[in-house]
């Protein structure tokens, strides 16, 4: 999806005070009239590659973002919608219901275009934003007396030696509770400079079992590999 990424990166905030004559542009909620000029055909893109922002961001409040309610998280975001020029409302029938959210504290963006309703696209964009926050926002981990937080224990396979018996079944990538666990795991791997064998010791698993856990989710695998590459290590396959 290289073309998609390029299209997204071509979207820049332009400080133009008036709407420009153009087939499409991003309009922003609120009355600021800052416009995201959009080059090329946005609607030809597909659902993969929905998020931008490159490297891990170190923010202390990273864990808090994930426990915010939808409304609270929304309040930290700017919302852009794709729209045509013109007066809108009853004048127009274009079914342009794409939504892009920018999380202001971190600059992470997520978008959704696939649904026919703006309302639903906003909900999917928000869900994607949560996943991105888990993947990209790193929190410091104190290795001295490390004990894995409950959200991390929940995503570990049952054979983990540090998993307490009352922890319930293993939570997989399709469950929304996977995200905070994934964030904690990435925090640990990041602190351990991408070493899978070191990570394994801290969470009571074999190196192979940690690898399998990481490879069970594509976005998690890519985030781990980003960390490993930035530390000069080989990516996991």
């Amino acid at each position, binding site marked *: 999806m290289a073309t998609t990424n390029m299209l997204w990166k071509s979207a820049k905030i332009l400080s133009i005070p008036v709407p420009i004559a153009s*087939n499409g542009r991003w*309009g*922003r*909620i*609120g*009355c*600021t*009239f800052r416009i995201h000029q959009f080059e090329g*055909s*946005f*609607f*030809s893109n597909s659902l993969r590659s929905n998020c931008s922002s490159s490297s891990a961001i170190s923010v202390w409040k990273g864990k808090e973002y994930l426990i915010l309610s939808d409304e609270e998280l929304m309040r930290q975001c700017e*919302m852009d*919608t794709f*729209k*045509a*020029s*013109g*007066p*809108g*409302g*009853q*004048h*127009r*029938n*274009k*079914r*342009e*219901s794409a*939504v892009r959210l920018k999380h202001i504290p971190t600059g992470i963006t997520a978008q959704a275009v696939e*649904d*026919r*309703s*703006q*309302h*639903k696209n906003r909900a999917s964009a928000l869900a994607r934003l949560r996943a991105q926050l888990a993947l990209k926002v790193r929190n410091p981990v104190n290795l001295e007396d490390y004990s894995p937080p409950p959200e991390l224990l929940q995503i570990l396979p049952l054979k983990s030696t540090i998993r307490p018996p009352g922890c319930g079944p293993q939570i997989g990538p399709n469950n929304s509770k996977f995200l905070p666990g994934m964030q904690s795991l990435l925090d640990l791997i990041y602190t351990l400079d991408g070493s899978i064998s070191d990570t394994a010791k801290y969470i009571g698993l074999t190196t192979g079992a940690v690898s399998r856990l990481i490879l069970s989710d594509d976005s998690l695998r890519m985030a781990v590999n980003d960390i490993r590459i930035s530390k000069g290590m080989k990516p996991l396959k």
Partner: protein
Amino acid sequence: MGSAVPLQLHSIGRGAMRLSISRAYLAAPHRVRPSRSICSSSSKPRIPLFLRPPNYSATLTDLQKWHDWAKTLSSSVGSSFVDADNGPDSALLHRELKWLVEDAVEDKSISSELRTNSEQNHEHNLRNVRLKVGIEELYRLWKQRIHERRPFQYIVGCEHWRDLILSVEGVLIPRPETEVLVDLVAEVVSDNEALREGFWVDLGTGSGAIAIAICRVLEGRGRVIATDLSPTALTVAGYNVQRYGLQELIELRQGSWYKPLRDVVGKLSGIISNPPYIPSDNIVGLQAEVGKHEPRVALDGGTNGMDELIHLCDEAAVMLKPGGFFAFETNGEDQSKYLVKYVEDNHRGRLCDLKIVSDFAGIPRFITGFLNEPL
């Protein structure tokens, strides 16, 4: 289309929807007197495509042929509609084609097969695909879309709006902008729980979109009265209300704006409307999908577009109960500002806390306010 089939589907749809609002149902007061029943009037709108039974079939090859033809037709549009009247471009039409396939086929995975299909597997392509509409009809529908500029929502018989899927046959197709009106109501009733109760009205309800969405926001505690002048609109709204199982909570009344509401003067908790607001002169230049196909009565707001809006504001001062809320959609910044000034000049001390709220695109789109509570 046999007459028994729509009935059966109808009840399936209703059953499914009831589940999702069961909480609202439990909380429902059930103190509703039977309305002048327009819901159950004889004529029903056509069933939206996605709800029809898969009574047709075609080979994957034939469906692929149609799809290729439709795609080529859409591509041939290029930017000509955009240049003519700011209509859809090819990219948008391709997306609509994808949605049409989603609604027309029984097996959703066909949709992606059509896009990635290669002709390597001949046997595979002879397999039959179950369809909700005949293949000839698919050709006819897409010709209507491109050649007549018939709105996509009329082609598939529904519009996805907020979390609802609504029949929109012959009525104004609810716009994404209008979704915000419902958020405004949700905000107001969460600030003031008392407003959740009592009567809310949706004036000029059309498909019933606003009435249904608001009713769900009120969580079964309030009642909604939806009015419309057009019998077609009331039939469509009635169909949608039933599909969401809200006929006990939403009452439909025929008549112009507040006229059918004489029994609730001064009693309304809220008044919401997306009235026609396009200045008459602008109707001719509208995008063909809108100007040539949607009901003019739902679009044309008179010389300056504000005939109805001014009437709605004037009467709001009489119809609301103290503390009651109103929100109206407008044509944009000029109308919003004009209306705020108009209300300040003519209803000072009565209508208060006036606000202009922007839509998702940053265009000042709604005016909201309250009826003053006596000190």
